[in-house]
């Protein structure tokens, strides 16, 4: 029978690859989240304890990630740093994405003068240089996690807003919007049901990208001497303060915090990609999940 003769389509291989990617991403994210949640209560870290005698030890069994230039264990600091940085990154990304999507969707879906006014406000907002606002906000309060979150969240929603608005303007002209209007959908319903789901991939990408970007901001602020207190472990400060040791030939204080930024980001991106395809399946990707 013809059914038996069907060869295995290349799709199946791709599917397993996809599944694997999804599983790995999920495991990694879960692992990091668990580490961040469980390790701090179990293993306390005295943020200000230094051990000048154990300075710059390369990775070993005692210190799997080695120690930094004042003798602190890097593994523990990375985990603690990830906690702070994930908080900064995720909260800032959420703020930016929710705000940006809401404003962009409102402007795009309502159109006309509302759109113009809102977008000019967005322009005004986006013209405040990010780092500058960061500097002011951080200076207004004292250096810490929340000023960084606020400054990143408050400045970065504008690009999301613009992207969302542009996509919505393009979606708005699709014939299926006519169908929804005729079906009695209110503007809000239209936005919620048809427009926003259409721009979620874009907004989601912005959100995922915002996470490393927020960490970036945090370290840029410390570079300018305005970020988190530099003795407090955060991935940004770890990377930022490891530069000197790298030039002197010690690679581990840079490598591990760097990996701690990049690996979770990639894992989150992997998850977001999977979620996106579930939400927005298209011809080709349908099977690959």
């Amino acid at each position, binding site marked *: 029978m013809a059914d038996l003769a069907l060869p295995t389509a290349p799709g199946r291989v791709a599917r397993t690859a996809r599944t694997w990617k999804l599983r790995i991403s999920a495991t990694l994210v879960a692992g990091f989240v668990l580490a961040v949640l469980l390790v701090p209560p179990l293993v306390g870290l005295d943020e200000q304890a230094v051990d000048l005698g154990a300075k710059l030890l390369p990775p070993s069994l005692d210190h799997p990630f080695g120690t930094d230039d004042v003798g602190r264990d890097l593994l523990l600091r990375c985990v603690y740093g990830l906690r702070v940085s994930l908080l900064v990154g995720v909260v800032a990304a959420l703020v930016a994405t929710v705000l940006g999507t809401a404003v962009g969707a409102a402007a795009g879906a309502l159109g006309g003068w509302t759109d113009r006014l809102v977008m000019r406000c967005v322009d005004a907002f986006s013209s405040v240089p990010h780092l500058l606002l960061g500097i002011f906000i951080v200076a207004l309060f004292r250096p810490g996690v929340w000023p960084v979150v606020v400054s990143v969240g408050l400045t970065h929603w504008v690009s999301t807003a613009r992207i969302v608005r542009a996509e919505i303007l393009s979606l708005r002209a*699709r*014939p*299926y919007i*006519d*169908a*929804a*209007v*005729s*079906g*009695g*959908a*209110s*503007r809000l*319903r239209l936005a919620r*049901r*048809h427009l926003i*789901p*259409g721009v979620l991939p874009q907004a989601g990408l912005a959100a995922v990208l915002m996470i490393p970007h927020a960490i970036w901001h945090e370290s840029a602020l410390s570079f300018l001497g305005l970020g988190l207190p530099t003795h407090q472990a955060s991935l940004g400060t770890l990377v930022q303060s490891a530069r000197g040791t790298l030039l002197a030939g010690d690679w581990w204080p840079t490598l591990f915090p760097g990996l701690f930024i990049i690996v979770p980001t990639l894992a989150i991106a992997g998850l977001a990609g999977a979620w996106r395809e579930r*939400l*927005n*399946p*298209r*011809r080709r990707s*349908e099977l690959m999940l």
Partner: protein
Amino acid sequence: MLELLSLTAGYDRRAPVVRDVTLTLAPGEAVGLLGPSGCGKSTLARVAALLHRPDSGRVVIDGEPARGYRHRAPRAQRTAFGVVFQQPRQSADPRLRLADLIAEPLRATGRPEGAADKAAETADTVGLGSDLLGRRPHEVSDGQLQRACLARALILRPRYLVCDEMTAMLDASTTAALVGVVEEYRRETGAALLAVGHDRVLLDRWCDRTVEWSELGSRHDGLATAKPPAEQSPSVR
């Protein structure tokens, strides 16, 4: 009763597509609209369904003039029309499963209770099997999608049906079946019908009366006319 009074509409004020068209649908009447391709039938249908603002002229629904178009029209007026669009692929949100596609108007008008059942029921009347309801538009054939679109148009039980070449891409049997569904619905509810199409035989058979585009008092010129464009185009061999 639906009155389209000296409507002029189009996409560029300087060159309207529909010019000074007047058409009246008596209550419960089925009117077929015939016309050459590109003459403005779909545009007129969109205006009639309050989806496109005409440059001038009025749409009067049951004696009440339309107060606006698209979102400016009150919901009650908008949902008095069930519209089946010409191109099912374009008029279905690619993200919605057919079940949601059909149920969406119910939910959008604040009647989410039992929407799913109602949708399944309506889908059944247009001949959509339950296994199709879980699929998304790109996983069904164009004809199946068109059936879903018809179900969507019927689900709010509109007083007016606007079918823009609903059967253009359907085989004879499905056409007959869907026409049957529409007729059944009209018998039940007394809804009026504006059916746009090219197939005179079909429209004659389906509708109470069939009007030609050219009879609508619309003067048209330019390319999208009854005259075959080929005859105007110098580059035709």
